[in-house]
C-alpha cells in the first residue's frame, strides 16, 4: 500500500491519502486478514519504539470485542471481553481458542462437548456430525479454490526462458483439451463429499460482488470426446495409448507435482491421471513438500502443479500474482508469480481495476480479467470447497450465521461478528471464572504418519540386530 499521509482530524475520522488512487482502500481495515485501525490513545502508553514493537506482551495491543490476554504454546489462546469496545460489549466474558492438530480429535472434542464450536472441519468428519442432537453443522461459501496450474513456458521479466518445463505446454489448444478432460462434478462429489462447488471463476464464490461466469459458448465442461477432437485437430497423433508431438515425436508425457502432505491432492491425482490417459496424455506424479514445490515453481522446473488459493474480500493480491510484474528476474530470483502467466491486456485491466472506485465498474473489469484467465487455461479450477463449521447448540446461543442461500450455504462471516452476541449456555456459565466459550481450531496439518511410523520401525529393527 502506498500511503502518502495518514491523519486523524478528530476522534472518529481517519484520513489516509495514497500516492496513487487505490480502489481497494475500503478493504484495508476489514478483519481478519487486513490491518486494523488502532487509535493512538490505545497504544501509545504501551509502545515506546513503534518500529521495533513486537506486540508480544499480554494483553496485546489490538482491536475488537475481545482482548488477547493469554497464550499457551500449541494449546490455547485466551480472549477476554473488551468492555469498552465501541460497537458494544460482547456477551461472553471469555472466548478460548483450543488448537487441535488432528481432524478426528477435533470432531471427538465437539461430540464430547469439550469445545462448543469448530471450523475448517474435514468433509468426512462433518458428515458424521449431521443429525446428531445439539449439534448444528453448516457450510460457509468457499473463499478458496483448488485447481491445477500448467506451465505455459516459464520466462523471466525480460523474456529469458527458465527451468525445465515441457515447451509443448505453451500450446493453448493442448491446455484447452486438458481443461475439457477434467470432471469437476466428480471431484466435488468424491473428494469433497459434495461439500463444495465445481470451480469456474478465478475469484472464489464467497464474494458475490466479483461473481463471474463464462459466456455459454466459452463454458468448458467435462467432455473427453471433445478433448480428443481438439488434440486430433491440433495435430497430436496417437501412437499406442499416448499421443506424440509431431515435431519431436516425443510422447505427450508431463510431470504432475502434488503436495505430499495434502490428502485432497492425493485423492485428485489418480482421477487426473486416468482422465488424461483417456485423451492420450501421460502424467507422472511427483509428490513434494510445500517448500520443495514452491522452490520448483519459482525456478520453472515443473509441468503441471496442484494449486490452491484463498482470498479475503479484496482480491487485489490474488489478481496480482497473474501479472507480468511478478515474473522473476533473469537469475530466477525476485519473482512472485503463480503460474508464469503474462498478458499485457490482463496487466492493463489490473491497473484499471485498482483505480475503479465504483464497485460495479471494478467488478466489470475483474470479470474481464477472469475471462482472460479462464481462456488461457494456465490455472484450471477444480472446485471451491466450502468452509465446514459446527456449533453445539446446547453450549452456545445467539451465534450469528447469516441467512443461507438457495443451496443451503451460509455467507462467509468475519469471526468476531459471528461470536459477538453469542452467549454460553448451561455448563459453561457455572465456571467461577465467568462466562466462557471454548472453540476448537483444527490446525490444517496432515502428518505423514505412515512414514514416521515406518522410519521408527526401521530404526528399531536395526537396533535389535
Amino acid at each position: 500500500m502506498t500511503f502518502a499521509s495518514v491523519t486523524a482530524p478528530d476522534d472518529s475520522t481517519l484520513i489516509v491519502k495514497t500516492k496513487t488512487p487505490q480502489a481497494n482502500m475500503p478493504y484495508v481495515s476489514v478483519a481478519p486478514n487486513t490491518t486494523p485501525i488502532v487509535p493512538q490513545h490505545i497504544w501509545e502508553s504501551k509502545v515506546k519504539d513503534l518500529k521495533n514493537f513486537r506486540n508480544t506482551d499480554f494483553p496485546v495491543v489490538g482491536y475488537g470485542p475481545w482482548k488477547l490476554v493469554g497464550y499457551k504454546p500449541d494449546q490455547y489462546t485466551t480472549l477476554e471481553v473488551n468492555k469498552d469496545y465501541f460497537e458494544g460489549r460482547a456477551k461472553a466474558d471469555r472466548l478460548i481458542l483450543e488448537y487441535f492438530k488432528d481432524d478426528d480429535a477435533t470432531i471427538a472434542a465437539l461430540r464430547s462437548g469439550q469445545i462448543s464450536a469448530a471450523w475448517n472441519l474435514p468433509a468426512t468428519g462433518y458428515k458424521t456430525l449431521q443429525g446428531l442432537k445439539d449439534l448444528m453443522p453448516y457450510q460457509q461459501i468457499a473463499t478458496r479454490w483448488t485447481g491445477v496450474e500448467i506451465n505455459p513456458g516459464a520466462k523471466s521479466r525480460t523474456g529469458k526462458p527458465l527451468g525445465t518445463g515441457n515447451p509443448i505446454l505453451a500450446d493453448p489448444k493442448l491446455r484447452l483439451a486438458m481443461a475439457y478432460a477434467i470432471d469437476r462434478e466428480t471431484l466435488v462429489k468424491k473428494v469433497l463429499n459434495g461439500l463444495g462447488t465445481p470451480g469456474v471463476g478465478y475469484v472464489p464464490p464467497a464474494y458475490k460482488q466479483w461473481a463471474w461466469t463464462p459466456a455459454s459458448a466459452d463454458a468448458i465442461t467435462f467432455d473427453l470426446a471433445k478433448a480428443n477432437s481438439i488434440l486430433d485437430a491440433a495435430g497430436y497423433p496417437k501412437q499406442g495409448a499416448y499421443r506424440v508431438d509431431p515435431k519431436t515425436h516425443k510422447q505427450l508425457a508431463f510431470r504432475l507435482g502434488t503436495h505430499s502432505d495434502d490428502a485432497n491432492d492425493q485423492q485428485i491425482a489418480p482421477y487426473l491421471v486416468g482422465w488424461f490417459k483417456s485423451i492420450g496424455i501421460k502424467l507422472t506424479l511427483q509428490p513434494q513438500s510445500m517448500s520443495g514445490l514452491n522452490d520448483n515453481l519459482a525456478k520453472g522446473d515443473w509441468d503441471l502443479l496442484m494449486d490452491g488459493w484463498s482470498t479475503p474480500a479484496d482480491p487485489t493480491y490474488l489478481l496480482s500474482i497473474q501479472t507480468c510484474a511478478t515474473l522473476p528476474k533473469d537469475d530466477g530470483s525476485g519473482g512472485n508469480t503463480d503460474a508464469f502467466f503474462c498478458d499485457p491486456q490482463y496487466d492493463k485491466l489490473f491497473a484499471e481495476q485498482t483505480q475503479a472506485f465504483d464497485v460495479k465498474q471494478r467488478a466489470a473489469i475483474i470479470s474481464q480479467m477472469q475471462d482472460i484467465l479462464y481462456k488461457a487455461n494456465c490455472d484450471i479450477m477444480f472446485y471451491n470447497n466450502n468452509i465446514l463449521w459446527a456449533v453445539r447448540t446446547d453450549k452456545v446461543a445467539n451465534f450469528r450465521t447469516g441467512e443461507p442461500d438457495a443451496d443451503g450455504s451460509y455467507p462467509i462471516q468475519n469471526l468476531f461478528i459471528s461470536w459477538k452476541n453469542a452467549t454460553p449456555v448451561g455448563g459453561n456459565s457455572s465456571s467461577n471464572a465467568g462466562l466462557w466459550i471454548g472453540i476448537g481450531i483444527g490446525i490444517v496439518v496432515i502428518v505423514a504418519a505412515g512414514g514416521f511410523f515406518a522410519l521408527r520401525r526401521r530404526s528399531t529393527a536395526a537396533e535389535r540386530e
Partner: protein
Amino acid sequence: MTDALAAELAADPGAAASAPRWYRSSFWPYLAAKLLGAAISFLVMLVIGFTIFNVMPSDPVATLTRQHPTSPSQMAALRKQLGVDLPVWHRFVNFVGHTLTGNLGDSWQYHQSVGSLITERLWPTVLLIGSATVISVVLGLWLGIRSGWRHGSFFDRASSGVSLVLWSVPTFWLGLILLVIFTTGVGPIPTNLFPAGLMSTPGYSGPWIAHVGDTIHHLILPCLTLVLVIFAQYVTIMRSSIIDELGAPYLLTARAKGLRDDDVRRKHAVPNALLPSVTVIFLQLGTVLAGTITVETVYSWPGLGFLTFQALQIPDLPLLEGTFVVLSGAVIVMNLLADMLYRVLDPRVRAQ
C-alpha cells in the same frame, strides 16, 4: 558382584586383587575418552545437520510469504533480513558459533527465540516420554523376565502375542481409536471420560494439586498409547536375554547350592540379562523425543516433535537447526549415560 565377574575371577585368581585398582584408576580416563567421543559426535552432527538443511531444495521466503501480499522488493529485503542470501560458509560459521554459545537464534515463522520455543515444549515432551518410558520399561521387563523364564508357557505365549500385536499397530491409529472410545464414549464407557486433546483444561482454576491432577487426566490417553506400542520391545529383548542365560552353568551352580527358583532368576539370571535392555532403554530415550510426533498430533500435545514438523514445512532453518541440535544432543547424552551405567552394571566393561 555378578556371576560373570565371579567366573572370571575364579579363572584368574590374580585378577581379584587388581580389579578394584583398575576400576579406580581407569574411571577418569574412561570418562574423558567417552566425553571426547561425545564431543566429536556432536561436532560431526552439527556438520551433517547443517548440510542436510542447507542442501534442501527450498525457498523459505516464498513459503513464508505465500498468501501474503508481498512485492519482489519486500521479498528481497526479507531474504536479507533472514540471512538467506549469505554465502553457505558464512551461514555455517554463524550456525556453529550460535550453537556453541547457546544462542540458537530467532525462529522465522514465530518471531521468537528458538531457545524459548524449545524450552516451552521440552517439559511436556519429557513428561510424556518420561512417564511412558518408565511404565513401558517396568511393564516390559517384568513381562519379559516372566515369559523368558517359562518360555513356551501359556503366560509366555499370551504376553508375547499381545505385545507383538500392539507393537505392529500404527501409533496414530491406536491413538485415534482410544481417543474416540474414551472421549465420545462407547457402550458402558461414558462420554468425556478423558479429554480429546491438549495438556491442560483452559480456564481451569484451583490449587496446584488440582492442576497436577488435571495434567495427569490429560496425560493418561497419550501415555497409554505410547506404552501400548513401545513396551513390546522391552518384552522381546528381556525375554530373549533371559532365554540366552537359561542354559548358563552359573545358574546350574546356583540351583545346586539349593537356591529357590525365584532367587536364581532374580539374583543371578536377571542382572546378567539386563545389559542389552539398558542399551535399548537409553537409545530409546534419546530417539523417542522426536519419535512421538504421531501421538503429539493425535492428542494435540504441545511437544518437540510437532515443533520440528512445523519447522520443516517452511523450512524455518533456525528452528529446524535448534530442534536438530537438541534432539541429536539428547541421543548423544543418553549414549554417554548408557556407557557410564554399563561400567556400573557390567564388571567386564570396567576390566577392559
